[in-house]
């Protein structure tokens, strides 16, 4: 085995120029492929993060049926068990409560349909990024029960500026209309319509008082430490909470789009991988054939001296394998380094992505290395090596030693 390996090395170094050129092709191919995969992994991951952290959280707990109908009548009078269960779970990074109710916002000259969300200003920060979307003014302070943060489109429809008062009318459980006045503390812009066009954020306390919910809320939102743990946390919640009182849902139960987008992206990546392999194979096979013809005489000589066909085959196969492995490893390594560097900094694609934020895509992508990627690449290298090596190696064994030696 070692002999073949050393033999392969020597043969490869003997024709440095060709080896180097082929290596370049390999490094470029495998390297860029790997990097593309890490980029894709990065941006898909960030899509998930964006969706989950913009607004929804990983898991939500509501009163049964609330997710469907959104009626304030369907609120949880006692969220204690849910909150306790969430806090007890080691994978839950943070949790918070919310009150959702739909209503109308009025100013002197305009009105707008809104979704009022009562949040816990400090706890919300630990769960979602809503506070970070405030572009003018500020997020709510704990205890600021007269303040409201508006989605940017709502603010524009109302022509409301910081400090302006907005009278909001909703229907409390039981159906009574109720109006409250709030002052605009901030305006938020997330790039996603469900936030920007509809949201009016007030404090949880304000909403509870207004709707006469006491200590109740409509929703408990959980942030899990890792997307992978979402299912586990979900299962635990189902176990611990009474299904009659609490309905638990994961983010993709409610909106499966991103999950499916990610899965379909995975599928198309395999497609791309296949194509790149084909191209690379094309180049390598050609190169190997070139080498074959150059070394025809050498092979003929070897065979004449007693080298078996099988050994010749093995030798050539080893050469290709070593070549491809080195090239592949260098390519992978290079891409891994790039991933490391840009992983933190991120690559700014703002020029290309424009406003895809409504699809939860960030203009800045952070590549991420994953075990899955490593496996894909290793598989690709192995397949390439095998396919590229077999045909020329086989061809070599077909040579007639006598004729071969006559070649110049």
């Amino acid at each position, binding site marked *: 085995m070692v002999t073949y390996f050393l033999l392969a090395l020597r043969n490869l170094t003997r024709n440095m120029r060709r080896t180097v050129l082929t290596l370049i092709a390999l490094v470029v191919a495998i390297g860029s492929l790997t990097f593309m995969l890490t980029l894709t992994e990065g941006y898909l991951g960030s899509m998930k993060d964006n969706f989950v952290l913009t607004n929804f959280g990983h898991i939500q707990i509501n009163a049964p049926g609330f997710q469907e109908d959104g009626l304030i009548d369907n609120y949880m009078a006692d969220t204690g068990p849910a909150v306790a269960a969430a806090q007890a779970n080691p994978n839950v990074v943070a949790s918070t409560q919310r009150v959702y109710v739909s209503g109308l916002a*009025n100013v*002197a000259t*305009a009105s707008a349909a809104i979704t009022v969300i009562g949040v816990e200003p400090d706890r919300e920060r630990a769960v979602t990024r809503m506070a970070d979307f405030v572009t003018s003014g500020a997020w709510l302070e704990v205890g600021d029960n007269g303040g409201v943060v508006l989605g940017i489109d709502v603010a524009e*429809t109302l022509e409301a500026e910081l400090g302006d008062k907005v009278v909001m*009318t*909703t229907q409390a459980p039981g159906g009574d*209309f109720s109006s409250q006045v709030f002052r605009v503390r901030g305006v938020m812009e997330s790039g996603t*319509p469900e936030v920007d066009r*509809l949201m009016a954020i007030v404090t949880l306390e304000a909403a509870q008082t207004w709707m006469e919910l006491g200590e109740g809320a409509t929703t408990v939102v959980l942030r899990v430490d890792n997307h992978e743990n979402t299912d586990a946390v979900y299962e635990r919640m189902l176990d611990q909470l009474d299904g009659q009182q609490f309905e638990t849902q994961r983010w993709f139960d409610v909106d499966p*789009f991103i999950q499916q987008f990610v899965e379909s992206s995975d599928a198309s990546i395999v497609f791309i991988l296949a194509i790149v392999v084909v191209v690379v194979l094309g180049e390598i096979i050609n190169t190997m054939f070139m080498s074959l013809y150059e070394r025809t005489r050498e092979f003929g000589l070897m065979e004449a001296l007693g080298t078996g066909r099988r050994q010749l085959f093995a030798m050539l196969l080893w050469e290709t394998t070593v070549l491809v492995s080195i090239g592949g490893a260098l390519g992978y390594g290079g891409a891994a380094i790039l991933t490391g560097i840009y992983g933190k900094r991120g690559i700014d694609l703002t020029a290309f992505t424009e406003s895809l934020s409504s699809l939860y895509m960030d203009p800045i992508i952070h590549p991420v290395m994953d075990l899955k990627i490593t496996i894909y690449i290793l598989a690709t290298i192995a397949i390439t090596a095998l396919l590229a090596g077999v045909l020329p190696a086989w061809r070599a064994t077909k040579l007639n030693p006598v004729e071969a030696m006559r070649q110049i």
Partner: protein
Amino acid sequence: MESCSLTCKVGASSYKWSNHVVRVMNISRKSFIQMSMAVAMLGSVGVGPVLADEEADALIRSMEDRTRAETNTATYRMVVTRPGESDREVVMQSWDDRVSDRSFIHILSPRRDKDTTFLKVEGNLWMYLPNLERDIKIPPAMMLNSWMGSDFTNDDLVNQSSAVNDYENTIIAREMGADGIEIVTIQAIAHLDAAVVWGRVVAKIRMDGIPISQQFFDEDDVLIRTLIFSDIGDLGGRIAPSKMEMIPETEPGHKTVMYIDAMTFDEPIADEIFTRANLSRRAR
């Protein structure tokens, strides 16, 4: 609280209407549309602001007494003027029970809207259309700013806020009216935590409590609309204005005039008036 699938946002950006649509509006039990009622509360449009000044206070209260009662029934005629179109006239009858916060309106004309009825009871708003042969409940988000297409808003009509609580009033001017009765100008500044959209209201009231005019300013002190009272005469046994003209200052050519053709105060109103059954009964 349905989360709109991402791609519905792809489509949604084609439609600005989707503001309303993205938020699914579900209503419990029967689906009905509650509409802000209180034509009867039109009386409350004339409600003056709170008085920091005791005299101002007293004057406002006396105005309220004139125009409000525990119950009243009335016939109104509303004329809406819009540029480029002929005036539209709506005639309606209303029953208002202030004590129990219930009211009922029956539209009499024009023919298109004839026998449309509204009921506000227990904090819910119902509307009945004869061609529908059923009633619908109106949710807050459908309470778009104009009432029946006029220059009066739902806010005007629903808003139960008493002048005394929400504003701080001071007398800023006095002048002698043509008929020898003094006219007092009161400035009412909305309390910061009052659930009213206005910043300030400037009201002119006669010393005998009859309102003359009101000017509504937003918080940036821009004059948004003016309400003028006239045709002072006998109204159901009281002396009160029977014509109210609302002029939006920001929309040239727009105007709404409300005439009170008849009104009775404090006559008992049968309970069955304020029922959903009554919505369709009136239509027959």
